[in-house]
């Protein structure tokens, strides 16, 4: 089976009694190997919750999740943590870099935690920083990097253990237009290289990097569109050149 992620009837309820919030109300999802899926919806629609359940950062109220064919709902905390380390790369809106570590130290950290040798971890981290165009910034602290550069470091860190899937939560949410373009180029490059990705976002531009777009509202999927890469016919109409 080439499915990297599978979810069935995922539900998530926060609170109890009268104060309950239904963040997810029954979501089914299959993500194929090498596929990039964008999940779009307004804030509060449940998309971040979904990502956390898919990555084993939270446990669902109901429903099942399989990662690489293995059901994760019943795993104990330790096994779940190992699964996350091995299979999942996380990218967050607020980067979540460790401020006291340099760029390369941030990137190598997941590999070190997974038990790789320091030299192998450093070698891979240097490769990844080069891949995201930040080789010359390896020794710099996050504070001296721009927002776009920090997110690129965070993406390199997410790739540190060669994850089966990258889960990105609003990766352009804190970025200006130029930095957004940098990150979109990077995500699009990863897609082209066959990296499986699930990206939740309210930024429609991110959808351009996806093979499939799912619209979400009020805890359910409402629409799904396959975004084929055909000829870009209506470009000049859209730019107001023809009409």
């Amino acid at each position, binding site marked *: 089976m080439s499915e990297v992620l599978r979810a069935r009837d995922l539900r998530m309820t926060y609170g109890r009694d009268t104060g309950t919030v239904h963040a997810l109300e029954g979501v089914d999802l299959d993500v194929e190997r090498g596929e990039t899926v964008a999940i*779009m919806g*307004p804030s509060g629609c449940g998309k971040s919750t979904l990502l956390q359940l898919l990555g084993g950062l939270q446990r669902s109220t109901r429903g099942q999740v399989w990662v690489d064919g293995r059901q994760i709902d019943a795993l104990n905390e330790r096994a779940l943590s190992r699964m996350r380390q091995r299979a999942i790369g996380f990218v967050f809106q607020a980067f979540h870099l460790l401020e006291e570590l340099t760029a390369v130290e941030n990137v190598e950290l997941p590999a070190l935690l997974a038990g790789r040798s320091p030299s192998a971890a450093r070698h891979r981290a240097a490769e990844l920083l080069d891949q995201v165009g930040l080789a010359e910034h390896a020794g710099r602290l996050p504070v001296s990097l721009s927002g776009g550069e920090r997110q690129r470091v965070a993406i390199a860190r997410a790739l540190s253990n060669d994850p089966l899937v990258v889960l990105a939560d609003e990766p352009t949410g804190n970025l200006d*237009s130029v930095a957004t*373009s940098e990150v*979109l*180029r990077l995500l*699009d490059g990863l897609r082209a290289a066959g990296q499986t990705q699930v990206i939740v976002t309210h930024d*429609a*531009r991110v*959808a*351009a*990097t996806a093979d499939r*777009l799912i*619209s979400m*509202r*009020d805890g359910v999927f*409402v*629409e799904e*569109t396959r*975004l084929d*890469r055909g000829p*870009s*016919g*209506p*470009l*000049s*109409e*859209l*730019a*107001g*050149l*023809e*009409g």
Partner: protein
Amino acid sequence: MRATVAAGGQASHGIQLGVVQEVLLALLAREPSHGYQLRAGLQLALGPLADALKEGQVYVTLTRLERAGLVSSERVGQANQSERKVYDLTPAGQQRVVDWLADTTWPKPAPAEFHLKLVAAAAAGLADPRRIVDAQRNVVLTELVVVQRAALSEPPLSVAGLLLEGVVLRLQADLHWLEACARFWAEPAAPNRATSREDGHERSAARPRPADDVRA
């Protein structure tokens, strides 16, 4: 703008003539040029959008501009080659360029028609405004994806990339507004949706049922 595309089912005749006229005049403001030089300048500025520039459109436009007295031309012989026309601005052409640069006319977005469509659909109980919004959002989103992908294929600091970014940002603004429409018409107290519920009777069996039960 976008709303008028293909309104009459007519085939496109290339880039709007007005735009090409003004740009050609402006490109001539620095120095006299051959037609092919002007065409190359336009192609660079438009990047992937230059496909819209039909073969011969530059020459046809230059001929019209010459007839209108805005450019003049002179046949210049070239070593080992046939004569080629070199175009130059006339004083009237120069004045047109000055006017064009000072012109602050800006194409307006046109949300009123869509807004009224939603209001009318709700008032007449013809359709759930949210379905209309969803359909429209899908169209705009697909358009945005097309343009953003073209933008991603441009190298950094591409002049055509800047144009594509402008198109993306406008489509993004449309999407933000459609989001606001979706939120508004999802409110149980939105105008006319409440009224039709108070009526308490179905107007027509064929009337699409507002999907209130999706999220009561």
